[in-house]
């Protein structure tokens, strides 16, 4: 009976054509793939493939340009916002998004992040926070939680010696150039749908020249955390969400109370 309904007119969901056929280089269960796809679904639905320029970081998603079928540039570590700034200033009619991890955006690229936000560049900044350096093998990130082990904090992050986990999203939200700022996850269908709405809102805001949309996605690192994907998502809810609460921080230029 099931075979009967497998026909094009009954297709309600499949991977957007704006994702390439190349197999994602990410570990099983990693949130990167979902975020990539939500960006590309947005670009697809808005019909702006020919007007979209993406910027890939250094980190696990350095090869993001292999998977998203839009023109892309790959930035030096932490410098994606600088590239994005120039691209948007020189081609104001295009849609620009940057895609960075926690080490890229909140450690080495902190200056670029803050000043890009402060200038209110009309672009969307996507920030994947999994509290660890994934690609280099699980070292401590600026966002690693207190007590959380990593390969460079093997006994857990000792905040007295290693500093505190950085909530950079809360830091940039009050900046006048930031128009929308929110924190998301991609581990449940509802969360993914919310993220996509935020991305859409951000792309629309840049067309209206309203300023920058900053979107954090708290995500998993199953390999780095040494957990199965479902266990990692559960651990994320229990440990990361209390410190990095999901939700809107600033919407349409106004801080959410």
């Amino acid at each position, binding site marked *: *009976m*099931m075979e*009967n*309904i*497998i*026909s094009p007119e*009954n*297709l*309600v*969901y*499949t*991977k*957007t054509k704006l*994702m390439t056929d190349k*197999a*994602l280089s*990410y*570990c*099983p*269960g*990693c*949130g*990167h*793939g*979902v975020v990539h*796809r939500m960006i590309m679904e947005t670009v697809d639905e808005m019909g702006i493939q020919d007007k979209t320029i993406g910027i890939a970081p250094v980190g696990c998603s350095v090869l993001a340009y292999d998977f998203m079928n839009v023109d892309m540039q790959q930035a030096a570590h932490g410098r994606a916002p600088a590239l994005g700034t120039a691209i948007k200033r020189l081609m104001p009619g295009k849609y620009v998004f940057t895609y960075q991890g926690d080490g890229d955006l909140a450690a080495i690229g902190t200056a670029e992040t803050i000043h890009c936000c402060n200038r209110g560049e009309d672009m969307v900044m996507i920030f994947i926070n999994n509290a660890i350096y994934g690609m280099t093998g699980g070292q401590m990130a600026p966002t690693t939680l207190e007590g959380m082990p990593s390969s460079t904090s093997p006994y857990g992050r000792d905040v007295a010696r290693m500093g505190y986990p950085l909530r950079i999203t809360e830091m940039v939200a009050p900046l006048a150039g930031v128009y929308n700022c929110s924190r998301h996850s*991609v*581990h*449940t*269908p509802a969360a*993914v*749908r919310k993220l996509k709405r935020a991305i859409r809102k951000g792309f629309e805001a840049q067309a209206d020249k309203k300023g920058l949309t900053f979107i954090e996605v708290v995500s998993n690192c*199953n390999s780095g955390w040494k957990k*199965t*994907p*479902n266990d990692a*998502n559960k651990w994320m809810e229990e440990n990361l969400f209390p410190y990095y609460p999901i939700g809107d921080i600033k919407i349409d230029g106004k801080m959410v109370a």
Partner: protein
Amino acid sequence: MAKIKGTIVVDKEQCKGCEVCTTACQFKCIGMSKEVNGKGYRYAISVNDDCTGCTNCAIVCPDGVISVYRAKIDSQ
């Protein structure tokens, strides 16, 4: 009486067996295969007829390997 029925098609060679889809499905329609694919992963499979085509599994799938079909079916 018309009933909404759904089903999924999994690109089994691209599936990495992460099992995130299995927890996303509220009707427990998805399980993992006994066999492994070319990459050595057990892949997602449909295990019952309770699928409503809600797309939740496909939306959370990191690798985008699930396609969802949905149709109204007349039940006798």
